Structures are given as C-alpha cells and as structure tokens.
C-alpha cells in the first residue's frame, strides 16, 4: 500500500484570514504526559500567530482515535499532527490523511508511513540513557523488580526492550524478582510494591517504564529503613521525579520534554504549511537527556517556570 506524498499547493491557502487550521490528535488527555504535551502544543501554536490548533482526545482508545482522524480529514484541516495510541492501529488512517493531501506529522511515537513527517522522542533512547547509568550503579547480584505500562503499549514495550538489550542482557547477575503491569499508575505500582516488599524482603532496585510508577514504588517504601538505599529508574522526567531525585529517593530518569516536542512540532508544521519544507523532510528527534542528582536543579527550575513545581 503506497502513500502518495503531498505536493504543496498550500500557497493559495496561506492568505486565508484566520490562518492555518491544524488539528492535534492527542493519545489520551487522561494520561498526564499527553495532557502536558497537548498544553505545550497549544501554547506553542498560539505564539506563531498564523496557525491555530484544535486538540482532540483519543481517550487511549484506538477506535476513538481512528474516528477522530476520520473526522479531521472530513473537516478540512490544513495540517494534522497525530500522537498515535498504537502506531500500527492508526496506520491505515494516517494513510488516509496522506491520500487526502493533508500534511501529516506523527509524534511521540513516530509512525512509519510514507508521505508523513515525524517528530519524536525515542522511547528506546529514553530508557537506554538510564541503562547506561544502571550498568554502573546497580550492585552485583542485585535483586530488582520491573514495572510496566499497559499491556501492548508502544512506549512501554520499547522501553522494556531497551532495558533488556542494554542492561539485563549485559548483567546476567541481576535477578528479576517480580515484574508486573501497573498501567502507568502511581497507586497501582504502590500496591504492587507493598506486596512485593512482603514477599521478597529485600529489593535493590526498581526499574520502571515511567516515572509515575517509579514514584509509586518509592512511596511504598518511603519510611522503610531497609530500603533507604534502594535505587529507582524511570522515564519521562516528570516534576515529581525531579523532586524525588533531588531528595535522593530516585536514581535517574530520561527526560521526555513536552516543551521541546511541542516546539519542534510547531516549527515543523509551520515550515510545511508555509512551503519552507516538504513534510517528508521532517524527521526529528528531541534529545533524551538523563536527569540525575547532578543536573536535576536545572529541570526543577524548568518546572518552577511553568508552574508545576511551586515555591
């Protein structure tokens, strides 16, 4: 199935009074990262002046997300940015966007489809930067537990894959005591950790596919002296994770910066709509810096600036 690439006949539209109408289809507004990204997108688009953004919510449901894509095609947006819930599931619908000659950027995650561009934060990379640190920091014969996101979730799968290839395969001495799904949720991770503490007594490190779950696990052992030196690894670089790193409770996290993602998406879309670039030339990655106690202050400052951390 080929996707025809969209040629730019946009120039005629550029002098429309209300500027370009762009749709952003978010994975799930209930997911705090996706919600943050949507917010940053709105803010970044507002700054451009000649583009307006409508945000749609895929409700973490592929059928809903596909429906919204269909609606957006039907309603003649000038450009569409898709944050897929499930790359494969959205693929045929993204192809429809291309067929309708609407420039399409996929973001967080990238969906491989001819004729589209992409701006991504690579989940493998985000976990990998943690693995590099963990290789050094996690002691010999350590016992660890692993927390996963929802079954089948693209990010969770990719991050887990990175941990396998970049850490567990290289450290056969490390034993996984237990591994379970906590659906990105802090409360579910907390309950799992409480039970694991009862079952295993000693846990050296928590390896979590996101920061929320890592924070839940840390919460469960917060006042337990035995776990004072427990390590915890996450991904996302949320405000909470930064605070925990600052307190010394969490080891590291790989930043997935909604601000950077939004900025790059906005610029890319602007370039495409104004004819500066072809959409197929867009293929960017935001960096995934590792946040540790060494550099956490700068990120805390970032969150203070955007109001997520107070005082």
């Amino acid at each position, binding site marked *: 199935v080929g996707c025809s690439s969209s040629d730019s006949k946009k120039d005629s539209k550029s002098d429309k009074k209300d500027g370009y109408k762009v749709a952003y289809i*978010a994975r799930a*507004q209930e997911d705090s990262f996706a919600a943050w990204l949507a917010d940053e997108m709105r803010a970044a688009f507002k700054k451009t002046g000649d583009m307006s953004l*409508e*945000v*749609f*919510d895929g*409700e973490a*449901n*592929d*059928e809903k997300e*596909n*429906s*919204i894509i*269909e*609606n957006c095609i*039907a*309603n*003649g947006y000038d450009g569409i940015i898709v944050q897929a819930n*499930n790359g*494969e*599931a959205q*693929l*045929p619908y993204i192809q429809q966007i291309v067929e309708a000659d609407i420039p399409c950027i996929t973001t967080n995650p990238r969906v491989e489809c001819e004729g589209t561009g992409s701006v991504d934060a690579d989940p493998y990379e985000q976990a990998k930067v943690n693995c590099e640190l963990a290789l050094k920091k996690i002691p010999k014969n350590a016992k660890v537990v692993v927390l996963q996101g*929802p*079954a*089948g979730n693209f990010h969770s*799968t990719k991050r887990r894959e990175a941990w396998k290839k970049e850490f567990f395969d290289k450290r056969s001495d490390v034993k996984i005591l237990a591994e379970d*799904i906590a659906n990105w949720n802090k409360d579910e991770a907390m309950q799992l950790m409480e039970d694991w503490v009862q079952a295993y007594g000693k846990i050296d490190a928590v390896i979590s596919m996101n920061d929320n779950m890592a924070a839940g696990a840390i919460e469960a052992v917060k006042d337990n002296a035995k776990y004072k030196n427990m390590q915890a690894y996450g991904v996302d670089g949320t405000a909470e994770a930064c605070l925990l790193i600052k307190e010394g409770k969490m080891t590291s996290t790989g930043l997935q910066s909604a601000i950077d993602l939004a900025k790059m998406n906005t610029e890319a879309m602007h370039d495409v709509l104004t004819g500066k670039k072809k959409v197929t030339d867009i293929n960017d990655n935001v960096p995934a810096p590792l946040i540790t106690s060494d550099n956490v202050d700068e990120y805390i400052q970032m969150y203070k600036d955007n109001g997520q951390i107070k005082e």
Partner: protein
Amino acid sequence: MKNSKARDFIHKFSIYIILVAMFIICAIVNDNFLSARNLINVARQLSVGTILAYGEMLLVIAGLIDLSVGSVLALAGVLSIAAYQSTGSLLVGFLVAIAVGVACNFINAILVTHFDVPAFIATLAMQMSARGAALRFTNGQNLLQLKDYTVFGQGNLGPIPMPVVFMIIITIITWYIMTHTRFGRSLYAIGGNEGAAIASGINVKRNKYIIYIINGIFAGIAGVLFMSRVNAGLPNGAVGYEMEGLTATIVGGTSFSGGVGTTMGTLAGGFIIGFLNNIMNLMGVDSYVQQIVKGIIIALAVVADIRSKNKKTQKVILAADDNDDKKEKAAAK
C-alpha cells in the same frame, strides 16, 4: 381530545423527538456536521457500540445484564485474528470470533440460570477472566499484520462502510427477533413478570441461554469489526464498552426494571450518543469539558424522555361531566 393525542404521540416517540432535535441543533451549530462524509463517519463510529447495545438490550429487557462484553469482544477479536493468521481464511477467523463470544456467554448463562448468580456479578467475573485470557493469549502484545482481515472493518459496500452494513443487518435481525418471533416476545414477558412467564409455559431458562448466546454472537461480530477497524489485535481494546452499550440502550428507553425496550429506541440512543461525540469534536470542545457536557446531556436526555412518559397514567373515576376541565393529576405513583 386532540391535546391528548399529541401527548400520546410525544410520549410514544419522545426519544426520536430528542434525536431529531439534536440532529437539527448539530446541523445549525456546525457547518461540517451535515456533510455526507461526516455523517458516514458518525455511522461508522457508532456501529460497534450499537451492535453491543442490541445485545445489552435483549438482556436488560429480560432483566439481565452483561458487564463482560468489552472483554469478550477483545478475546474474540484476538483469537479470531490468530485463527485467521494461522489458516489464512477470513471465514475461519469470523467463525472463531463468534464461537468465542458464544462460549463466554454460555458460561455467563450457566452461572446466571443454573447457579442463580446475579447477572451483574457473573458477568463481572467473566469481564476479568476474559480480559485476562486475551492478555495471556497474546502475552500482552498487539497482534499485527492483519492484511485482508481489515476488510471487515475498513472495507466498503458501495459508499457504505462495512461496519455500518453489519450494523444495519444486525438492526434488522434484532428488530425482527423482537417483534416477529415468539422468543423475542417472551423476553418482554420474562423481564416484565417472570412468574407469569413461567406459568404461561415459557421456558425461561432456555430463553435466558438463547439471549446470552445471541449476545455472544453480537460480541463476536463486534470483536471482528473492532480489531479489523483498528488494524491490530488489541488484547487491551474495548475496555468499558459494556457501559457504552448500556448507555445507548438505556438512553433509548430500555428500562432496568425489565420488560421494556425497543430496537429502534436503542438505535436512536446509539445515534444520540454518536452525534454528541461527533459534534463536540467538530466544535473542538476541550476534551475534559466534553466529558462534563456528555454526562449532563445524557442525564438531560433521560430526564426529558422520562418526563414526557410520566405525564400520563392517572386513572379517572369521576364521571365525565364532573370534570369538564379535563383530568391530569399528579400521579401518586
């Protein structure tokens, strides 16, 4: 006299009136709403939910419920895809989905009719088990590369998307069952007065099995459509779809006290919810606000429906000349 006819009309067709009102409002507030493409989209989007709603309708009319349908859909869908992938036959894939839907619902029926487990708890247990089974089977991973399997959900018959074709066929079948078969009529009796149904020689247990089996067939078909439409076997898909189905059927006038409900009402309920979702997306309503509004509108639609129905039913005893100003009396209820 005329007045009371109008009232009868409103009473009988209130849900359709609400639907039409909504349609008109949508058309006014947004230009894109009335485009053929958009309307086809809406129909396609609500087809899976409406098919599930018919299953729930049969159950609720008979005083039962199914909370497992989202999970069963997922299990049926992933097993169906696996079957298709290993045999290459679309037919086999389709039949496996139906078989799985039926098997799960057969267990529901056994628990409910033979072990007297409340339908709520029996199907809640099935919800957990079927979901677990779907995840276990796929190891939590999505099944990919569906190839031709996508024809069910993404194909078209002329201008009409396949899911809509399925929905239309199932609507007709459901309507036929509910109005033209003994089985369908007996559901109203079972839900309306189970004792009377038994005493009238209706085989209540057998009929409950049949209802769950039909519900299972619908769940299986919905599973095929869902997975094929999203182009992946998602063991985690369709969470909470039981509530969508139930909402459509209840908004459409089916009553939880049993014995009341119609196919067309359920269809109208499905469309009301479909329009609601669509118009809010068209208008770019913030997604959190959408949820708030959706809750409010559903409550209002049901209030309007119930209000219009409650207006009647106080009996009149006084001789006609005694109350020329004509009846109407707040029902004591």
